[in-house]
């Protein structure tokens, strides 16, 4: 065992390093990913060890990064693209949606595009505008993309490696306010023993209400569950990990057990991923539900400036309030 206590950012770094060591076709592309190591230092030291041909500082152009990565993937590379901040993924949206997602299908599977697009996501770091977005629903709505979000350092370490090995394009969300959370990681672990990449995980067992979360909200919800326990309420917390495909089996099993469900995400409530979850749960767990599926999510406003973000972000109280409301039926 080669264990180390690492932050989430460092865990992703180690995951990238291992993927690059194991497969010479794995490349990193993005803005400032080389010498600087990325603005969050996720690619720190990789250019020094793997060279400028494998850790590529690109011109400042997100569409060009994804488009070029598609071309390199056609020739057999497995590019890992870094989008510097969530709000800057939109210039690349055309390439991601019309090309990256669809080319495998348009070519009858002759062209597989194993491109990973890493997106630091979400708020809570006191940033300026366009640095705190949660754009996952745009991508879960697009056929052909896998969408996943890591919530803790161990998952970050394993999921990034699993994402790179997949033959599908992956939008990989990294909760930036959790980059500095630490955990002990076994760097030598056999990836085959890691939690399967498209399975959700029950991260806290409970009996009264299921709370579904992913990415940055998993920790918030776990804190809420700890607080609720003091008030005699038992929350079961499910970390979805993969949004597309979605592990409905784990979700339904939990909801059928507890009979109540709250969905928590930072993204705006309206047309958010929670709506998909609520619809599916209502359809498949209708007779087990004691209350409607409720949402504890962000507001449907533009993400506010840093002095107001604490009022925007769903926090422990908003989650517990939704839990309380679900007992009002």
């Amino acid at each position, binding site marked *: 065992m080669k264990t180390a206590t690492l932050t989430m950012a460092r865990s992703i770094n180690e995951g990238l390093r291992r993927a690059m060591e194991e497969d010479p076709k794995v490349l990193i592309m993005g803005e400032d990913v080389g010498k600087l190591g990325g603005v969050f230092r996720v690619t720190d030291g990789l250019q020094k060890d793997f060279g400028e*041909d494998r850790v590529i500082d*690109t*011109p400042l*152009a997100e*569409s*060009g990064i*994804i*488009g*070029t*990565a*598609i*071309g*390199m*993937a*056609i*020739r*057999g*590379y497995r590019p890992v693209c870094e989008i510097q901040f969530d709000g800057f993924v939109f*210039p690349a949206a*055309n*390439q991601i949606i*019309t*090309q990256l997602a669809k*080319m*495998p*299908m*348009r*070519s*009858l*599977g*002759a*062209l*597989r595009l194993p491109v990973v697009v890493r997106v630091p996501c979400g708020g809570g770091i006191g940033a300026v505008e366009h640095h705190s977005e949660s754009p996952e629903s745009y991508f879960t709505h697009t*056929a*052909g993309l*896998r969408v996943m979000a890591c919530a803790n350092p161990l998952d970050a370490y394993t999921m990034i490696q699993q994402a790179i090995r*997949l*033959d*599908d394009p992956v939008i990989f969300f990294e909760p930036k306010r959790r980059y500095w959370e630490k955990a002990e990681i076994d760097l030598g672990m056999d990836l085959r023993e890691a939690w399967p990449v*498209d399975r959700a995980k029950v991260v806290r067992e409970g009996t009264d209400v299921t709370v579904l979360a992913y990415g940055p909200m998993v920790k918030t919800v776990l804190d809420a569950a700890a607080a609720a326990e003091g008030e005699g309420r038992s929350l079961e917390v499910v970390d979805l990990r993969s949004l*597309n*495909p*979605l592990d*409905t089996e784990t979700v339904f099993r939990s909801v059928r057990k507890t009979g109540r469900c709250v969905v928590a995400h930072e993204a705006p409530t309206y047309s958010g991923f929670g709506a998909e979850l609520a619809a599916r749960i209502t359809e498949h767990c209708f007779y087990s539900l004691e209350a409607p599926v409720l949402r504890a999510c962000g507001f449907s406003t533009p993400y506010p400036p840093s002095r107001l973000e604490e009022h925007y972000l769903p926090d422990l109280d908003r989650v517990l309030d939704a839990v309380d409301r679900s007992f009002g039926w």
Partner: protein
Amino acid sequence: MSVKTHRQAVQGLLPALTPVRFVTEDGSPVKESADYAEPSAELLREAYRRMVLGRRFDTQATMLTKQGRLAVYPSSRGQEACQIAGVLALREDDWLFPTYRDSTALVTRGVDPVEVLTLLRGDWHCGYDPAATRTAPQCTPLATQLPHASGLAHALRSRGGDAVVMAFVGDGGTSEGDFHEALNFAAVFKAPVVFFVQNNKYAISVPLARQTAAPALAYKGVGYGVRSEQVDGNDLVAVLSVLTAAVEHARTGHGPFLVEAHTYRMDPHTNADDAGRYRDDAEVERWQGADPLARLETYLRGRDLLTDEDVASAREAAEAFAADLRTRMNLDPELDPLELFDHVYAEPTPQLREQRQMLAAELQAEKG
């Protein structure tokens, strides 16, 4: 950098002040473009045969839309010098990134014409295997194929080979952001890609003057540090000679090359378009006089490189090709709607499997 070396650097990128031309509109040779070598007689004769075939393919495809066999067809009639030269300049192991208007180029590349027309016929996939043919799917969102070309070219070079990439784009496509990003990436990476702009004067209805204020689209390359050239796009000899030089430039490690061909789309944007709303017949007639096929034929006959027999045999081959295409296109394609779900992911997701079952049940119910 001294003023002198700076000036040399800029001049080394600049296109000719007027489009490179080897053959005048009436088919006689001009000798004003000594910078480029004229293609061999044998290659020109081959190009002629391909042009006759390409023209016939294109008119046949337009007819197939009128018969309801194709959902839509964007014709490249009048642009055959570009369509044929763009392919003949390439080796088999080079890559081609076409747009939706480049079906004739694909046929010239050797892709089965029924496969070429698959998407336009209303099917959901591109029809051919891009990896086997080294020809990317015909691209509909304008200019999005260009960054792919830059990336693939960079990858080819990284893997140590000397294959190159040819990326087609239209005049409208040069206004897209991806045109800029692709040229810039290719220049910075020194990627072996030739960007070939077929300036056919209209983006559907919008004339070139509304796309750009540049003296010519070829000048756009200079700002990126990309060697650029402009050529008479209806003069096959010129297009082929310039593209051959451009491909050689890329192949020998000198980075990307931008070529603008001045040509004209004789037909409407597609069969669904009414070109009479934005251009007058007199303009179309003027361009009729610059027809690339007639020009090449006159030129080759003038040089005793083409006989009546050659012409007859090229036309016969084209008719046989068109007849075979008609026969095969008149058979209704057998589509399996359930195939829709097969290639969205490497393995269908549970959510897709669920929807596949739903469609299967609907199909079963339709059968009764």
